[in-house]
């Protein structure tokens, strides 16, 4: 007995017959290969940009301007402040030490924050000493918490706000390359995962592979062989879908696995491989599998209803595209996404990202804060200059926002998608049952 026999024999004989038949049929169709090869090529092209970005040094910016030598005495302002001389006077300089090269005062005070929790957090440390060296205690504690040179972060998950109030010159000159690579890497995974894999793969695979699953058999007349057997039409639909996922699910898994390996080895980090990305890729794959199953069942039903069902499928895909944008761009703040398939897929990815990268939202907030430099408007609100990569990461990151834990959000959205798939099958088979096949 061959291996396939032992696996398949666990299932019903008719279901395996139709599922196997469907999978073999896919292999003979050009459209199957076209859609798969086109998706792989498109993903590889995007991947090239990623690899290019990961291998390009992000230019370091002197966020606090202390590498300049304002008075022209050869000592950078930061060093003069540390040594207690006047950075604005050419006569005042620390002649007891050698002048630092200006690069030493770029990226010299990076973030060193613990994982933030709900409520008020006290984080930060003044690595370069330019806060501790300030003259008065009140200058050293501008955020008035009686701790000198620290940062208050008020996390309010109820209103999804994070308020950062820092003492002056604490963590004010972060490392752009280090931050930008990490944020860019995560933004790439979430961006390509949410839009490229969950939405585009999730919609194009079923558009090409599922719409004709029953329709082509009807228009070619080959459905007569299947319908002349003691098998209910609902079963035919179900087992055809089984064959469909037999092709699409392994494809999605392989695509995600390959991307996970490539980005895991080329991405930033201390280890050889970024293990923390694995749960994120797994949730992307799982979301894409479920979404493509639901779309596939819906599109197959469209094909049963109307011989030009692909038109209905494209209209539906347009609706879902809008929903995908809303779900991605609002980061989970919009409730209209519940009225879609893709919205629930995005919740799975967001929940997976929150599990794999528990510090992700913090990374976003820190990057948008960027060391606390920015312009104050007439209302007194400061618009900070974000670090490179922070804005893309903010766009593609989201919050499951179901008001439950990430794991539960994962389970709930899986169940919702499974229910959508079941309903699509149920409606599809009811229509199929009442359809006259000529």
């Amino acid at each position, binding site marked *: 007995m061959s291996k396939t*026999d032992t696996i398949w*024999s*666990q*299932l*019903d*004989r*008719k*279901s*395996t*017959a*139709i599922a*196997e*038949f469907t999978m*073999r*049929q896919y292999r*003979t169709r050009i459209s199957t290969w076209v859609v798969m090869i086109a998706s792989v090529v498109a993903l590889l092209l995007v991947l090239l940009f990623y690899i290019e970005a990961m291998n390009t040094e992000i230019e370091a910016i002197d966020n606090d301007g202390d590498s300049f030598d304002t008075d022209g005495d050869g000592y950078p302002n930061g060093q003069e402040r540390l040594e207690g001389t006047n950075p604005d006077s050419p006569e005042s300089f620390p002649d007891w030490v050698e002048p630092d090269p200006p690069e030493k005062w770029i990226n010299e005070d990076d973030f060193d924050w613990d994982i933030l929790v709900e409520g008020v957090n006290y984080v930060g440390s003044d690595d370069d000493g330019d806060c501790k060296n300030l003259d008065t205690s009140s200058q050293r504690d501008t955020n008035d918490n009686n701790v000198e040179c620290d940062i208050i972060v008020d996390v309010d998950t109820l209103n999804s706000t994070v308020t950062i109030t820092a003492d002056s010159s604490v963590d004010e000159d972060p490392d752009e390359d280090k931050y930008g690579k990490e944020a860019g890497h995560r933004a790439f995974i979430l961006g390509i995962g949410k839009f490229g894999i969950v939405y585009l793969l999730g919609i194009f695979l079923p558009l090409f592979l599922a719409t004709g699953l029953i329709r082509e058999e009807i228009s*070619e*007349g*080959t459905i*007569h*062989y*299947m*319908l*002349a*057997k*003691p*098998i*209910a*039409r609902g*079963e035919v639909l*179900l087992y055809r879908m089984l064959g469909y996922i037999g092709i699409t699910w392994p494809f999605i898994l392989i695509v995600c696995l390959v991307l996970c390996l490539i980005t895991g080895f080329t991405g930033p980090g201390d280890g050889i491989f970024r293990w923390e990305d694995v749960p994120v890729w797994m949730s992307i794959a799982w979301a894409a599998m479920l979404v493509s199953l639901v779309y596939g069942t819906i599109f197959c039903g469209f094909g049963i209803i109307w011989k030009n069902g692909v038109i209905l499928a494209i209209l539906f895909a347009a609706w879902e595209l809008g929903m995908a944008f809303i779900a991605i761009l609002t980061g989970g703040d919009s409730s209209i996404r519940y009225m879609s398939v893709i919205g629930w897929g995005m919740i799975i990815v967001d929940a997976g990202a929150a599990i794999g990268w528990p510090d992700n939202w913090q990374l976003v907030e820190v990057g948008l804060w960027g060391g606390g430099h920015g312009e104050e408007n007439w209302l007194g609100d400061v618009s900070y200059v974000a670090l490179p990569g922070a804005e893309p990461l903010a766009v593609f990151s989201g919050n499951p926002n179901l008001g439950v834990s990430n794991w539960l959000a994962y389970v709930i959205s899986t169940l919702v998608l499974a229910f959508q798939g079941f309903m699509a099958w149920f409606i599809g088979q009811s229509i199929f049952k009442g359809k*006259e*096949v*000529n």
Partner: protein
Amino acid sequence: MMPDVSQQGKMETEEWRPAENAPVIMFDRVSKTYGRINALNSVSLGISGGVTGILGMNGAGKSTLFKLMMGKVRPSSGAIRLFGVDPWKNPAPYSRVGFVPEHEKMHDWMTAFDFIVTFARLHGMTRDEAAKEASRVLDFVSLSDVMHKRIGQFSKGMRQRVKIAHALVNDPELIILDEPLQGCDPLARTTIMNVIKELGAMGRTVLVSSHILHEIERITEQIVILHKGRVLALGNSHAIREMLDQHPHKIALECENPRELAKSIIKIEEVTGMSFAEENKLLIETKHLGEVHKKLPKTIIESGIKVTSIDNPDDDLQSILMYLTGGSA
């Protein structure tokens, strides 16, 4: 969808059994309309056992009749029972039915063997059973030697035989063949006719549709004539044959060398005339269609000339219909 771990035994569920004494096919005042077209008009039929020919012109309602039996379309009025069950609502009786559709399209990418095995498994057979049965039926239609070739490479006649074989794989009690002889070469016609006759001799109920009387005559004497959606006549073909023989008939042959072939065919005494209509076409005139059709295959084979098709242009069925309808056909 019950799990079937053991994969033993013939069926995974309890075999479906028909109601006792239920006729194989029962049509009770069945009508079917497509929009404003009346495809079938109050047809009542009861068929059990033997080979029955369903005879009718294109559009007479033969295919609609079969589609109703196979639960593909729903009757507009009236009741249909297949082994006592309404086929539109319940596919269970198909475990005892073999259906050969008229459609030419098949899964060309499959081998004949795979095609039959796949659909045999829809009857609930295991892989092994299906493979065994597939070999048996392919042997029955004399296709054992090419069973591992792709259907796409097959000739029309071979494809018809694959379709018939696939319908026999579950050892059905009722076999429905929709235009099985259409477009077949003479050899395939003979094979298919023999297969059908054999099935009849095995005690199966066989329904064959055709629009050519002499084809049906060579298979069975029991015929149903459909015309414009109604059952026009029901019964023995001999009676019909007798009234037809007084009319002259034409047979058209398509072949490589019609003049050469004509020399052999003129020796058949029932042939009263011949003409060369177009290139590669030979027209034979006769008053005894049945006799000529009996002798024709032997004559063609002896002449050694390749004949690609045999057709009756002035359809003999047309003549019957003229007679039966009093000239309104």
